[in-house]
């Protein structure tokens, strides 16, 4: 089974963020970059499927130099090979552009039986690259899997939706996105880290993928970005528990008008 995992490298989710001088993006220097948590789950799922069905797990990441460390980390977890996909022409890709690039890269690698993605990349939280990618590859897709079983080319996926669980039937090849609860990603041990140094790391650019600027034109543009307005200071309620309870209910009813 040939499994391709798309890995987005994102600012550590605990980072303090600053808005850049252009007022449109975050300052990207001095940040710690990590594999987006859902993509770590995707790598883990790929490794588990490989353990069960044999095959290979290949990682792809679109991004500048910083994604290489993320890919190495994925290799240390146990993936077989990785490719950094980068070109100055990819500087301001939106989700549609990223999907176009990833689709071209997957075709370039001869396709896959299963493409795994996170359901959203932590940070930008676009939650759309995988669906667009499935479209571009003309593959079926199931999103936000919390359980995944593969038998031959038949796939059964469970996903949580409002009010319950959906059970899906799908056929391979397919694009499937991960949700928390699917698995617990393993840590890369020292042995894994050593082994990762010898694993193949490819590089692809726009020319290798035959991509023109026109195909990558952004469909959406971020015009501004700012931290949310401060919330008003907290109003602390005094007294014994009974008095506090009474006063809180009064305030919620009379002042905030929410109950």
């Amino acid at each position: 089974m040939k499994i391709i995992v798309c890995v987005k490298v994102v600012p550590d989710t605990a980072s303090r963020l600053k808005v850049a001088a252009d007022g449109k993006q975050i300052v990207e220097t001095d940040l710690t970059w990590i594999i987006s948590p859902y993509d770590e789950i995707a790598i883990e799922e790929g490794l588990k499927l490989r353990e069960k069905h044999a095959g290979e797990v290949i990682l792809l990441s679109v991004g500048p130099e910083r994604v290489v460390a993320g890919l190495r980390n994925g290799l240390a977890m146990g993936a077989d090979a990785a490719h950094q996909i980068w070109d100055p022409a990819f500087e301001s890709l939106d989700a549609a552009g990223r999907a176009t690039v990833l689709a071209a890269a997957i075709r370039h690698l001869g396709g896959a039986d299963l493409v795994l993605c996170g359901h959203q990349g932590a940070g930008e939280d676009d939650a759309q690259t995988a669906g667009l990618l499935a479209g571009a590859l003309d593959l079926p897709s199931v999103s936000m899997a919390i359980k995944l079983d593969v038998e031959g080319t038949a796939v059964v996926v469970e996903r949580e939706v409002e009010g319950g669980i959906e059970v899906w039937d799908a056929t391979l090849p397919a694009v499937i996105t991960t949700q928390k609860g699917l698995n617990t990603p393993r840590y890369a041990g020292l042995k894994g880290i050593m082994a990762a140094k010898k694993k193949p790391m490819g590089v692809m650019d726009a020319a290798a993928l035959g991509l023109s600027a026109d195909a990558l034109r952004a469909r959406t543009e971020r015009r501004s970005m700012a931290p949310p307005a401060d919330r008003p200071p907290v109003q602390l309620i005094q007294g014994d528990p009974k008095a506090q309870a009474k006063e809180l209910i009064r305030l919620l009813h009379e002042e905030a008008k929410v109950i």
Partner: protein
Amino acid sequence: MANIILTFAEIRAGALRRPSLEAVSEARRLADGASGRVVSVLVGDANETAVKTLGSHGADKVIRFGAADLASYSSESYARAVAKAVASEAASAVLIAYTAMGKDLAPRVAFLTGGGLVSDCSSFEQTDGRLVAKRAQYSGKMISTFAWTTRLQIATLRPNVFALGAPLADRACEVVPAEIDGAARARVREFRAKEGGKKELAEAQVIVSGGRGLKAAEHYKLVEDLGNALGAALGASRAIVDDGWVSHSFQVGQTGKTVSPTLYIACGISGAIQHLAGMSSSRVIVAINKDPEAPIFKIANYGIVGDLFEILPALTAEATRHLASRR
């Protein structure tokens, strides 16, 4: 050219879901501001109330796709239906609720139509029918504004943020049947409903959440009791999900649910940035915590510094009394 705003009407068990009604209401407001029309796309088996409700909340037209193989949801076939309606109506915008279904559907609609997609929007401004959307990014640490470079503007709308319009029972609404190839290589086979009566977190008006301050799994009952008294949905911090006190479906935060209720009550939750990521856009936040320095107080509107084992029972009793007096 007239502005045609399309909305996707999500149906579960025959009924229209509230977030889709919020989308129709917003579409109506936008259309009214640009002398436009609202067209809702309904796929699968919907009851008559669903169709009527779309009309009374602002749809001028409902396009109803109803083949046998559309009964169960599939991203592929449903996206084909929406894309077909986009083309036949020459729509300028598509509004889809950011629910599990909408989140799955919208990118495939974007692929088929070539339109840009902005996810999880919480407000729109409009100039000559061109939209600018606001949305949270970086776990709510940033609020961004987005515009579209494509003519077609596709947006998903955060549930519980857009107000429902006042229904007008006698608004004219034309219902048009339509057909589409329902073939799909991935589709829902079965739906297993959650144990009875549990309220859906992402769409609840009131949420009571508990954290590690509860000390032990059996004390989550204190949160349940207050939740029941207020008719609230129940949430949790990741700490107690990881400890197995409640299932992951309760988790609020960056790796759990994003919620925007009118009232969020955090009990014994410290307010880690990853938890705030999921609830900081709640309208009113109440924090109950014994540590006055807990970060949750920085975003709370009302706070009680104290022992939740004393406060929660008192609050449950008071809430029960208050709501009984109003019946």
